Each structure stands twice: as C-alpha cells, then as structure tokens.
C-alpha cells in the first residue's frame, strides 16, 4: 500500500469516526431488592438487559455520544436509570443505527423492568417479575421472561422466545415472531407478519394487512381477526377448543384435530367461500342474498368454533 493510499484510508476512517465514536464509559452498580422495580430510559443505541441471581442493578458500556450524562437513582425499591439527552434532539432522533448507547444492564431475576427508547434495539433475558419493553424504531428481543410481558415497537421486529406469562406483543409495521411461549398470548400488528409456535392456553391475534401463521398446542381459547390479511391457525392437542375468528376480505384457515368435539358455525356474509374438509358437511347459500353458512357438530359438541367473514374465504380442515 502506497503512502497516499494509506493516508486516504486514514482520512476516510476519521471521517467515519462520529458514527462509531464511543460516548462516555459507564460502570455503575447499586444494591437493590430482589423484587426491585426498575425503569430504564435510553433513546438511542443497543441495550441488553439480563437477569442475574445477585440483588444488584448494574450498568456497563458506553453512553450515547450525544448524551448529557445520566441519572441513576435507587431508593425505596425503585431504581431509575436514564441516559440524559439534549432537548434539541427531541423532534429529530436521527436514523443512524450506529449512533447511541451500547449498554449491558444486569437486574435481579425477580425484578420488574420497564424500558423505553426511540431509536433503540433492546433485548431482555430471564426477568421473572414482569417486563415492559417499548421502542419506536428498533427491534425488541425477549427470552425466558415470566409474569406480565409487554413488548412493543412501531418499526421493528419483535422476537419472543420461551416466555411464560401474560404476553402482549404489539407492532405497527414490524414482524412478530413468537416461539415457545406459554400462558396467555395477545398479538397485534397492522402491517407486519405474525408467526407463532406456542403452547399458550389463551391466544388472541389481530392483524389488519399483515399475515398470521399460528402453530398452537393445547390452546383452549383462540380469537383472531384480520381485515385483509390471511390467517392460518393449526390448533393441536385441543379436543374442545373455543375459537372465534373474523375477517373482512382476508382468508381464515383453521386446522384442527380429527377427533375434535365442537359445535361449528361458519358464515360468509357477502361473497366469501366456505371450504370444509374436517367433515362431509357442506356450506349452503341463502335463497335470497349472498350469505353462505355452515353449521354442524362433531363428537358431543363440547367446544365452540365460530368463524365469520364478509368476503374472504374460510377453510376448515384436519391436521
């Protein structure tokens, strides 16, 4: 490499410096209770929250390069950590994902954690006292959480693994991917896709344009709705499920155990089709008007399945 090329490379590297320049280093810890309520606010960057055995709150890493310091207050069972940002940044957080803090935060297993950010990616692992993670432009990743769990982003992916409790996952444009959850599960998306493999007993899902794919095991109650999006749900090991589904023009596809015991009521109000390969029953069309409907019972009719659409398709089948 000639000296001139070396110089060019060096200058380019220096020009890029603001993108990766580290902010102020931080390495702080506080003794806290085992069930501490912990609130974390960090507007930009990457934050990893990890539950540990020790009754300590600790934060390590580097602060946002534009931060004006931080606040860390711990008293009466409540710990608040905030990366202080200049007010001039409000109204323009920028979109460079390389900017911002890079923090690893440790909290006690039994703590209750709330995180809020804007252009921030956040992950949380092992927290058992309840977790609320909220960002706008960023991804949310949560693993092995328990209790009340609320994960929310506007433009980013939600990745949920092996969580157990009352889960509420919400996005506007991002995808939601939930694997191995248990307890109750509520999912909402406007445009993003939702993909779920869960053993939650109670599941609710709502999409507008996004698609939904549900692989459920042992689910007792399922409710899903869509406007235009297609939803496919397979409910296994559930002999008497209670399922309620509705769509406007999106398709609803439901797959059940062959020996399911339930009363079925399927209805397409204005032009939708109803396909049934679970039994030999076929939908009938109203003499006057576009409505089609199908009602039948399998087994002793213990469960209840109601699916309605305006002009979408309904498909019912066995696994």
């Amino acid at each position, binding site marked *: 490499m000639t000296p001139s090329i070396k110089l060019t490379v060096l200058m380019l590297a220096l020009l890029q410096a603001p993108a990766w320049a580290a902010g102020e280093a931080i390495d702080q810890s506080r003794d806290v209770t085992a069930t501490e309520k912990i609130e974390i606010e960090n507007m930009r960057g990457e934050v990893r929250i990890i539950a540990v055995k020790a009754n300590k709150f600790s934060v390590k890493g580097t602060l946002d390069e534009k931060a004006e310091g931080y606040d860390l207050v711990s008293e009466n069972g409540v710990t608040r950590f905030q990366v202080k940002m200049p007010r001039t940044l409000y*109204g*323009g*957080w920028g*979109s460079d994902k390389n900017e911002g803090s890079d923090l690893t935060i440790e909290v006690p297993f039994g703590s209750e954690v709330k995180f809020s950010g*804007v252009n921030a990616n956040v992950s949380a692992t092992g927290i058992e006292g309840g977790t609320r993670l909220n960002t*706008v*432009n960023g991804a949310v990743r949560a693993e092995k959480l328990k209790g009340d769990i609320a994960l929310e982003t*506007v*433009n980013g992916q939600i990745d949920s693994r092996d969580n157990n409790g009352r889960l509420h996952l919400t996005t*506007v*444009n991002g995808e939601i991917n939930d694997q191995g959850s248990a307890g109750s599960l509520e999912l909402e998306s*406007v*445009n993003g896709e939702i993909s779920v493999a869960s053993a939650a007993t109670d599941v609710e899902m*709502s999409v*507008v*344009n996004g698609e939904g794919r549900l692989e459920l095991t042992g689910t007792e109650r399922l409710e899903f*709705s869509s*406007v*235009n999006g297609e939803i496919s749900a397979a409910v296994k090991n559930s002999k008497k499920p209670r399922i309620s589904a*509705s769509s*406007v*023009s999106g398709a609803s596809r439901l797959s059940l155990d062959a020996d399911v015991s339930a*009363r079925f*009521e399927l*209805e397409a*109000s*204005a032009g939708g089709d109803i396909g049934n390969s679970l039994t030999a029953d076929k939908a009938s069309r109203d003499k006057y*008007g*576009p*409505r089609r409907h199908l009602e039948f*019972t399998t087994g002793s*009719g213990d469960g*209840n399945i109601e699916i*309605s659409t*305006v*002009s979408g398709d309904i498909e019912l089948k066995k696994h």
Partner: protein
Amino acid sequence: MKTEQQLDAMISQLAPAIEPQRDLWPELSARLEPRQRRGYGSWMGVAAAAVLTFWFWPQQLPTAPQDVVTNAQGQSMPAVSLLDVSRQLGLQLEQEQTRQLKALQQIPDGFTDWAQQIAIWNKAQAQIELALQFQPDNQKLIQQLQRLQQQQLSYIAKLVETSELT
C-alpha cells in the same frame, strides 16, 4: 257415554308421571347454548355501542323521520339501530382523526402511508355496511364494524404518540 265416576276411575289408573320415550335434553341443550351465547354477545355489542355513543355523542341524532320508542321513564325517544349508531361513530371518528392529524407537526417514520391505511379501513367498513344491507340484524357484522373503528382510533393514537416521541 261414560259417567264422571268412570272417568275418575280411569284417570286414577294412569301413571302419576309421563316420561318421554327418549332423552330430549341433549337436543334442547344443543339448541339453547348458542342462543345464550348470541344473547350475551349482542348485549355486549349493545352495551359497547351505548357506552361509546354517550361518550362521543355531542351532536344531534339523525334528522330523518324515525320510529319512536318509550324508555323506562315513559319518555319518547327516537329508535336508533346499531348500524345508525356505528355510522354516527364513524363520522365522529373521521372528525377526530382529521382534528388530530391536522395538529401534527410531522408524520413519523412508519406512518407516512397513513392516508392509504385509513383508506383500507374505510373500504373494509364499506364492505361490512354493504353486507349489513342484506343482514341488518347481524350482530357479528356490527361488532366487526366497531372493532375496525377501534383499530383506527388506536392507529391514530399511536401515530400521534410516535410523532411526539420522535
């Protein structure tokens, strides 16, 4: 012709209770269960509509001639169908959306296509209203309409909240 004593004697020979030849309850039960569910669902719909109506309803009722019903206090009131209520809520919703969106300084990332998104909901609502013309008493359609309106409200609220954050 049998005398009254003879009839009494014949009646006394009858079994004190008559049972059906087969168990009719499963069939009756099967018929009753869904009606109870529908009843609950419809009351929930009526309750939700009523709450929302009185919550949001500062303006007058529709001016077209209407049926009149009498309430528990004996006062005459115009009869309003659930579809009418939903339509009123839809108008209210539109006004609220316009008000909130006009107040925004800038549209945040992820919401730049908000007008298209609202158009999708409006189109879906129009489809439901069309279906309601064939089935004006279909409670599920009414509930679906209200759910879409609720989704729109939540979407606009999220847009405004995100705008304030970013």
